């Protein structure tokens, strides 16, 4: 991609072929000149779209009606393609940008974000996840004929099985999947796909697997396509990372790309600006007052059994790091608790101390691990027998959760509100409700997405609006370090700063969106 300052070149070449389909694998990078301002605005808009996708994915079941509707709206507002059957014809009279221009924007913005998000494992993982979800939503919107067209255009050739084989396997095929009936088997082609190309179906056991091949009806080919998309994107990002030095040497681009990659993270609570402000003696009472339920549970389990398994140590240990425990404090904390159990001092130093130092970036590849966000706690590393980590709203039996909330003196009406939210899979909202009930406030002024955020907000509420610790990150907050302000101002400032809120209402301009921490 060439950048030629602010001069804008008019595109006259037959790009119609390039953007003939609404959906693409982003195999070819764009080959045109564009202005820097368009470059920036495209990138920012796509980032907003991906952030919406991330948030919707936690609050709604993917591809549910609500999810699709909201994503449709967002795509429309940001001028991205949202109706895959529109024809890319410039001359069609439409208000706003044409379908062609939307597809072009989609194409270019994807490649710009690749530059920003190829640099680290975390960034890549995030970017791939959102792009895959976006692709899924769009592929789902295609008509069956368009889906077949897409497959052929993109060289996904998988073999079908013979009619005889289908008959022999009929029972097994029907029993392997909800949406495969006897009729499906008779009417549709079944494809034999190597299991490595259909991992999502294998993982959830939604397909018949024999001798290393999965048998997929034509109607379900989307999972395969998604997998393929994910793999291609992953490889492409690895390649992109290698050509980064050349891109970074262009001074116009580097600051923008840096801003883009920091913006996704928002607050990751990795920078400890309040180390040592907490003493170990405070932890017990803090766990009751200001810890989110997941951490309170872990702390309790630790005190009870004087031990936590690896998953629990990671989740809780990193959280403690985030609230300001220093390495020395952390070592003392874990050591004194473990010693009360079956572990003697020697064994602790040999087996567990290393892990704690590792968490603080003092061992191994010296990565300074960031405390887990709610997303991470909910979605990854499922707890199993003997574990206490995870998100209680997600991973506990509703009955046990209810008992626990009763034990923690939450009112019966509050408990049923929480359980309703849990039933609707709104785990973060449930935790937020728990916050509101335990802090006796009407409505939380923030949108919860991180356990350390819960802690900070809790401390703020309990301190009467005064900041006990200086905030990291968003500009509005860092100005609020004087005495108590009215709660409405807090709320407005927080709402403005929080990118996760309802996006159509967001009117912030580019600068404040990207202001550095």
């Amino acid at each position, binding site marked *: 991609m060439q950048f030629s300052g602010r001069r804008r070149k008019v595109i006259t070449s037959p790009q119609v072929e390039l953007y003939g389909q609404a959906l693409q694998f982003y195999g070819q990078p764009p080959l045109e000149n564009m202005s820097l301002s368009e470059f920036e605005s495209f990138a920012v808009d796509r980032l907003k779209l991906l952030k919406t996708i991330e948030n919707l994915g936690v609050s709604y079941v993917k591809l549910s009606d609500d999810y699709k509707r909201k994503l449709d709206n967002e795509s429309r507002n940001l001028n991205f393609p949202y109706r895959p059957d529109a024809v890319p014809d410039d001359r069609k009279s439409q208000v706003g940008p044409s379908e062609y221009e939307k597809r072009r924007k989609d194409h270019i913005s994807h490649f710009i974000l690749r530059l920003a998000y190829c640099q680290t494992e975390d960034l890549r993982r995030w970017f791939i996840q959102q792009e895959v979800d976006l692709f899924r939503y769009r592929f789902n919107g295609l008509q069956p004929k368009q889906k077949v067209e897409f497959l052929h255009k993109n060289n996904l050739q998988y073999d079908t099985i013979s009619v005889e084989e289908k008959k022999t396997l009929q029972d097994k095929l029907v029993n392997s999947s*909800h949406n495969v009936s006897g009729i499906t088997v008779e009417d549709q082609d079944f494809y034999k796909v190597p299991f490595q190309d259909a991992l999502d179906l294998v993982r959830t056991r939604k397909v018949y697997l024999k001798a*290393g091949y999965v048998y997929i009806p034509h109607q379900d080919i989307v999972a395969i396509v998604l997998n393929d998309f994910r793999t291609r994107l992953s490889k492409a990002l690895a390649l992109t990372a290698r050509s980064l030095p050349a891109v970074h040497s262009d001074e116009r681009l580097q600051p923008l790309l840096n801003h883009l990659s920091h913006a996704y993270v928002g607050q990751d609570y990795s920078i400890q600006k309040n180390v040592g402000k907490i003493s170990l003696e405070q932890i017990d009472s803090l766990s009751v007052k200001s810890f989110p339920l997941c951490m309170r549970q872990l702390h309790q389990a630790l005190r009870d059994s004087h031990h936590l398994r690896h998953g629990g140590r990671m989740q809780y240990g990193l959280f403690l790091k985030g609230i300001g425990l220093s390495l020395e404090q952390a070592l003392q904390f874990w050591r004194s608790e473990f010693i009360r159990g079956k572990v003697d001092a020697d064994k602790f130093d*040999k087996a567990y101390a290393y892990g704690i130092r590792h968490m603080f970036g003092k061992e191994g590849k010296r990565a300074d691990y960031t405390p887990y966000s709610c997303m991470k706690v909910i979605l990854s590393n499922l707890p199993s*027998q003997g574990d206490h980590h995870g998100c209680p709203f997600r991973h506990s039996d509703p009955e046990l959760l209810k008992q626990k909330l009763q034990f923690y003196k939450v009112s019966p009406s509050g408990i049923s509100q929480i359980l309703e939210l849990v039933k609707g899979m709104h785990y973060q909202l449930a935790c937020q409700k728990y916050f509101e009930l335990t802090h006796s406030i009407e409505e939380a002024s923030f949108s919860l997405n991180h356990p350390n955020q819960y802690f900070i907000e809790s401390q703020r509420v309990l301190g009467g609006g005064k900041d006990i610790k200086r905030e990291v990150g968003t500009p509005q907050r860092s100005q609020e370090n004087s005495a108590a302000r009215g709660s409405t101002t807090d709320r407005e400032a927080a709402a403005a700063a929080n990118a996760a809120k309802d996006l159509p209402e967001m009117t912030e301009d580019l600068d404040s969106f990207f202001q550095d921490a």
Partner: protein
Amino acid sequence: MPSSGYDAACLPDLLPLYYRRLFPFAQYHRWLNYGGVQKNYFQNREFSFTLKDDIYVRYQSFSTQTELEKEMLKMNPYKIDVGAIYSHRPNQHNTVKSGTFQALEKELVFDIDMTDYDDVRSCCSAAEICSKCWTLMTIAVHILDRALRDDFGFQHLLWVYSGRRGVHCWVCDEAARKLSVAARSAVAEYLSLVKGGDETVKKVVLTDPLHPFIRESLAVVERYFPQYALHEQEILSRKESVDKVLALVPEDILFLFQCCIYEGNKAVIRSLCLQATAKKGQHFEKEIMLQYCYPRLDVNVSKGVNHLLKSPFSVHPKTGRISVPMDLEELDTFDPLAVPTIRSATVLNARVVCCEKENEKDAAERRKIRDYKRTSLAKYVKYFDQFLDGLALSWKGELLKKSDLEKDF
């Protein structure tokens, strides 16, 4: 687990004997070299050793079988773990440009640990095992072996007793070694049915339709369930254990059960089970059987390409038992408590060697026969040989292909 007089203090003396005389280096190298089809496969493999006083060293690697032997004799490791094949020799990883030293391939591995079943076994807990709960491992091996072969198409599976409280599986097919992290995790999740920690009471939930994999696994569990759960673990005999079972039964059936169980009438329970499941969508008796018996895997062990796992034929320092491969033909009669220990193996060997000295056999002749043949380790090494023969067929084809390409006749 009965200690049978084992004391870790014997290790400094017995380990050298074990490594000098009994550890099957030739077979071990034959395995990890995989026929030499891929260059530097053995040289780029990571080993880690735990030495005396818990000193842990990673990124060990060796150029040849001889070097491996020499180093092991020199360092006398208490524990040996096998890791991944890297892009460069692990023992030179510090000289490699940061970011380019990568784990590339490794066998797909599974680790089944008895402690993960503590909530459903009454005879033992934590690190203890006995013949009653060992059945859980037998069930696990049957189920997973079938699934890995029939469903995933893998052929070269090495099941190994860990030496203390579980079993490991090494899937050595080429396709398995090349699997990505995502693929490994998908395989492990496909094989997982028991989900949830202490906070979850009901860990198995089945919905219609029942996937063929679940049916096959249930068939195995049902074979063992009456003898194992009802007879040996006696889950329906004592009040606390009965209550645990009842916690897994849906409320509307519960009251029926409670009457019968407290009268100890097992036949009535069976017929109620059958009646109740006539109701569509209810699978609670299957769910109970699975919760009590279905294999519990640690997904994290299987996910990582660079994960280090205890090596076959290494000694377990806490029990002295040798990590031996398991012959699946004799799986149902496998007794973990009868597995050779480092003491029994080396002592037996010493006795035999003594006797032969008296017979004035040719010294060189004696040495030619690798000592393990004269110990209880013999049958395990023989089984390992058979496994390797099967594996060798797969790389013979590869070598032929390669030499054809290079026109190397």
